[in-house]
Each structure stands twice: as structure tokens, then as C-alpha cells.
């Protein structure tokens, strides 16, 4: 398809602007001006509409395709929340309004949403206080680790290490490292659970925190999680909960009850705010009471029914976001939680887990299941059987694309060879799952019978398999 720059034609125009209603001959001195106009496009409004509409049709999306991308929780995104987030009362509000004298009174509605959402997230996770500021999961991780670092520092301790299971999300070690920590990976045993012997050996006085997902990236809930937390606390370390997989356990277990001290959530996963093609997300962070004083400023405080911003916390880690987080995303998550209520959230988790187990049971005779135990919200298969014939996880992914299904996450977690991580979510129907299952079985049979065929897939997409080596070698990053 053409680039928008390729349809540009001098003299075309897609904008209207108010006429300049003041007369002024003031000019900016030449030395401060750009030598040439920015080479932006010149097109008509319809050109723009057609171009981006055509592009949108080249995407798989939840609204058009089953999208069981493991670890990403691609559930249905309700439409009424989009409407609410587009209201002028939210969109047109300047974030500095409550920071000027007298402005707090004029932004009570927005402050209420953040305040109430933070309270709801506390009850959902069993934590004592939340900040809505982090703008994505990884941003939440960094914020959480900064809180942990602050806690140790103010205790006069210089702990240098963060322990992370080898199957953790890549963001975990990256976040710990950029916050100044060394990272040690804890291996998983044959049962897919953390190697406790190794943990005990690594858990020295130098460890600041253990950072993990629960259920983990294999979709397994570690029954020894409390024991791990107790060991950590005994060694003076804190427990960090990566909330990427919270959609599995709403109302069943809460990180706060399991012994976690700091959690981050991904509102774009568990609470149905859209992923936007890779953002914006929101990654609020919750902490236990003892850590609340370290939360980033400002905090929203309530006094006699009026909400206000508090910048006075002297132990805070400081500012981590310009304002109060990705506010419009917070509005959507808040609306979703209020609509579902407690019962609805539990029902969501139960059915997310049921859907994943259903797929696991129906496919286990066709694909290798590296860890044979009940899964939670996602199940991890290995294409090892198929790869012996030369059909790899990536080939299966491309075959699924031709069937109109977005592939599962492949090659993650790293400890599973040829991993395929399937997360159906609760919003998919049995009909959709059955269709997926029968396609996966068909693919397994084809892999056995005619492995060569896979090199052709996908055939139905706007482009066929792309040369990623060329992309990385002959860099072409802009037109």
C-alpha cells in the first residue's frame, strides 16, 4: 500500500483554521526560523480518511478476530467506556487546574474518579494504598522498585540484588536493572515451580526484593507462594507482584493476602481498557501501609468530602509522572469495575480460567504440554513435536493468521522450547474456542502430513512473510 507521503500533492489541503483576527506585523527574527518548511504531506481530508481507514483494515484486532495472545489478556473492550472517556468534562480538563489556587474545586469530578479507583484497586488486591500515576506496566514496575529501593535506603541498608524467576516477563529484570539493581535469575524446577533450594541459597542479606508474577507465565499458581514470601521477609527482602496475570484470580486470591508488599496492575489487561495497538496503558501501583509514605507525589486526599492534592509527603520517592497517570484510561477502568461489581469480576476470572483449561484439555493430545497440571488463565504448549518435522511455533502462528485467528504468544516463556502461550480470556464463547481448537488440530495434522506447506503461510494477508533480517540490516526507519 502507498505511504501517505506518496499520495501528497502540492496545494491540497485538509484543514481549516480560524482567520487571524488581529493585525500584527510582528515577525520572528530570521535566525530563529527553520530554513525549509517541514516536509509534511499535502492531501485532502478524504485522502486522509481513506488512507487510514485502509490501514485499519490491515490489522487483526479483538473486535474483528479471536486474539488469544498469551500474557496480554486481549479481552473485549466495552464501548460505553470509550464514550465516557470522550466526554468534554474529562478531555478538556487541564491537569494543572487543581494545582492552582481555587482550581481543586473545579476538578472534583476527575479527582473523585482517581480517588475511588484507587480505593477499589486496594480492595481488589488486598493492598492499603494505590497510586494511579504509572503510565504502563513497566512504568509501574520501575515505580514499585523505586519504592523498594527507598525503603531499604531509609532503613540504612544497601541491598543490591533483585531475584526474578527465569520465566518472568522481560520487563522485570529490565526495570530492576535501570533502577540500579543487579538481577539474579531463579530457575524453575521440573514441575514449573520456582526451585526452592536455589531460592534459599540466593536469598542473602543483599537481596532487596523478589519480583514475580502469580499465576506465573506458565499459567500456574504456585501453591508455595506464601512460603516464598515468608522466606523473603525473614531475609529482610520485600515481595513485588507483577500484576500482569491478575485476571486469573479476581476474588479468589489477593496479592496483599499472599504476602506481597508492592504490586502493579495492568489496567489494559485485567480491566478491559483497550491496548491501542501497543498503548496507552496504565500501570497503577499498590503498597502495604508501611510503604505508603514512599508513594509518588502528589497524593489525592479527602477532607470533609472535598478532594485535594497533597505534595507534602517528605518520604516520597518524588515525581514519577507529570500528573495523575493516563487519566482517560483510568476513567475506562473505573467504569468497567463499577459495571461488573464484585460478582462480575469473580465471574470474569472463573470463566477466563475455564476457557483456558478447556483449550488445554482439548489440545493436549495434539501438542506437547511441558507442565501437566491445571492451568489458570492461560496454557503453555510446546510445538516440539511439530518442530521435529520442521514446523516451528512461528510456522503454526502464520498458519493461524490464514485462518483469521491472531496467533498466541510464541517463544515465551523462554524456558519452554517452541512455546505457544494461549490466553483466550473470559469474553470468548465456546463456539469461538471450538473453532480455534479444530483449527489447531487441523494444523497439527497438516504438520505431520505435509510440513513443507507451512513455508507458504500466511497467504491471505496484505503481505506475505517479511524479511526481518533485511529490516535489521538495511535500516529503513523513515520516508
Amino acid at each position: 500500500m502507498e505511504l501517505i507521503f506518496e499520495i501528497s500533492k502540492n496545494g491540497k489541503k485538509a484543514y481549516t483554521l480560524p482567520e487571524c483576527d488581529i493585525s500584527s506585523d510582528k515577525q520572528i527574527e530570521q535566525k530563529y526560523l527553520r530554513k525549509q518548511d517541514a516536509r509534511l504531506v499535502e492531501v485532502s481530508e478524504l485522502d486522509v480518511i481513506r488512507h487510514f481507514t485502509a490501514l485499519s483494515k490491515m490489522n487483526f484486532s479483538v473486535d474483528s478476530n479471536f486474539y488469544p495472545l498469551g500474557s496480554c489478556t486481549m479481552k473485549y473492550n466495552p464501548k460505553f467506556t470509550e464514550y465516557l472517556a470522550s466526554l468534554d468534562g474529562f478531555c478538556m480538563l487541564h491537569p494543572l487546574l487543581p494545582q492552582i489556587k481555587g482550581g481543586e474545586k473545579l476538578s472534583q469530578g476527575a479527582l473523585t474518579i482517581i480517588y475511588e479507583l484507587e480505593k477499589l484497586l486496594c480492595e481488589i488486591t488486598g493492598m492499603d494504598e494505590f497510586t494511579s500515576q504509572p503510565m504502563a506496566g513497566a512504568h509501574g514496575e520501575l515505580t514499585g522498585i523505586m519504592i523498594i529501593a527507598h525503603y531499604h535506603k531509609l532503613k540504612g541498608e544497601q541491598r543490591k540484588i533483585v531475584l526474578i524467576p527465569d520465566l518472568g516477563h522481560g520487563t522485570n529484570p529490565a526495570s530492576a536493572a535501570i533502577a540500579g539493581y543487579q538481577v539474579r535469575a531463579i530457575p524453575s524446577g521440573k514441575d514449573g515451580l520456582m526451585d526452592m533450594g536455589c531460592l534459599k541459597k540466593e536469598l542473602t542479606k543483599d537481596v532487596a526484593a523478589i519480583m514475580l508474577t502469580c499465576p506465573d507465565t506458565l499459567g500456574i499458581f504456585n501453591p508455595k507462594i506464601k512460603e516464598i514470601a515468608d522466606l523473603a521477609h525473614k531475609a529482610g527482602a520485600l515481595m513485588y507482584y507483577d500484576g500482569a496475570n491478575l485476571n486469573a484470580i479476581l476474588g479468589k486470591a489477593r496479592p496483599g493476602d499472599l504476602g506481597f508488599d508492592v504490586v502493579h496492575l495492568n489496567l489494559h489487561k485485567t480491566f478491559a481498557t483497550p491496548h491501542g495497538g501497543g498503548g496507552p496503558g496504565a500501570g497503577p501501583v499498590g503498597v502495604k501501609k508501611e510503604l505508603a509514605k514512599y508513594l509518588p507525589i502528589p497524593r489525592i486526599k479527602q477532607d470533609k468530602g472535598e478532594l485535594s492534592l497533597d505534595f507534602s509527603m517528605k518520604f516520597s520517592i518524588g515525581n514519577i509522572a507529570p500528573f495523575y497517570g493516563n487519566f482517560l484510561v483510568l476513567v475506562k477502568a473505573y467504569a468497567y469495575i463499577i459495571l461488573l461489581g464484585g460478582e462480575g469480576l469473580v465471574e470474569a476470572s472463573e470463566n477466563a480460567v475455564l476457557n483456558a483449561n478447556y483449550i488445554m484439555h482439548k489440545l493436549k493430545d495434539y501438542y506437547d504440554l511441558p507442565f501437566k497440571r491445571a492451568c489458570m488463565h492461560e496454557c503453555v504448549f510446546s510445538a516440539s513435536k511439530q518442530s521435529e518435522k520442521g514446523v516451528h511455533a512461528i510456522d503454526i502462528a502464520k498458519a493461524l493468521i490464514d485462518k483469521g485467528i491472531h496467533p498466541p504468544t510464541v517463544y515465551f516463556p523462554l524456558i519452554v522450547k517452541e512455546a505457544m502461550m494461549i490466553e483466550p480470556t473470559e469474553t470468548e464463547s465456546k463456539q469461538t474456542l471450538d473453532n480455534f481448537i479444530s483449527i489447531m488440530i487441523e494444523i497439527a495434522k497438516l504438520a505431520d502430513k505435509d510440513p513443507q506447506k507451512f513455508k507458504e503461510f500466511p497467504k491471505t494477508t496484505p503481505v506475505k512473510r517479511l524479511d526481518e533480517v533485511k529490516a535489521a540490516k538495511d535500516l529503513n526507519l523513515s520516508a
Partner: protein
Amino acid sequence: MIPGDLKYTKDHEWAKIDLNHAVIGITDHAQKELGDITFVEVPETKTILKQGGALSTVESVKAASDIYAPVSGEIIEANEALADKPELINQSPYEKGWLCKIKLSDPKEASKLMDARQYEEYLNTLKK
């Protein structure tokens, strides 16, 4: 085939040692594991390295591999051709795909490296 006249490390680097100098590269096994190499950070001459110190990074589309110095010394020459043609490592890991030449500061260190037979045995243990 694993060339008999080279020394090897467990990180799959090779060194061709000639009195006070060594030419360094990565093994055929290493390039196969990485797949199509898309980028090589060409080592900078005059850098002084300790045995085991980071020397370079070699990247494919889905992996990045740190390369460590098999021996201590100063880099006196680097294979600049790799900047434009990283695929030389895939095509010719032991010849045209060499990374750099080091002037040895401690020629005795070479004894800590594996010879071809030991490296082959080591590769066999990895297969299991």
C-alpha cells in the same frame, strides 16, 4: 568441522594464537545458534581487555550475544568489514568473519583455553 589449530572458550569464542598475538572470532556453533547475523559491534582498537572482559556484541533478529575476550591484551586491529557485512560471520566464521587481533599481555593464559578435541567434547555435552 572444528579447526584443529585454534583454541576455544565455553562461550564459543575461538583464538588463533601466534606467539604474542591472537586473532579472535566466534565459532561455527555460535553463528548457527544465532542465525542470520544482522549487526556486529566492531571492537575498537587500542582497547585494553582482561580475559573474559566484554569485547563485542553480535546480533541476529531475535537474539543478541555478548562476546568475551578469550585472552588479555590490547586490540591492535579490528575487522572493519563486519560493519557493512555482518553476514561474513555466518559465511566464514573462522576466516573472513574474524573479529579482532589482540596483542597478548599474558601469553600463558592460552593454556586455560580448550583445544579442538576438548571443545568438540564440550559441544557434545551441550547436545545432551
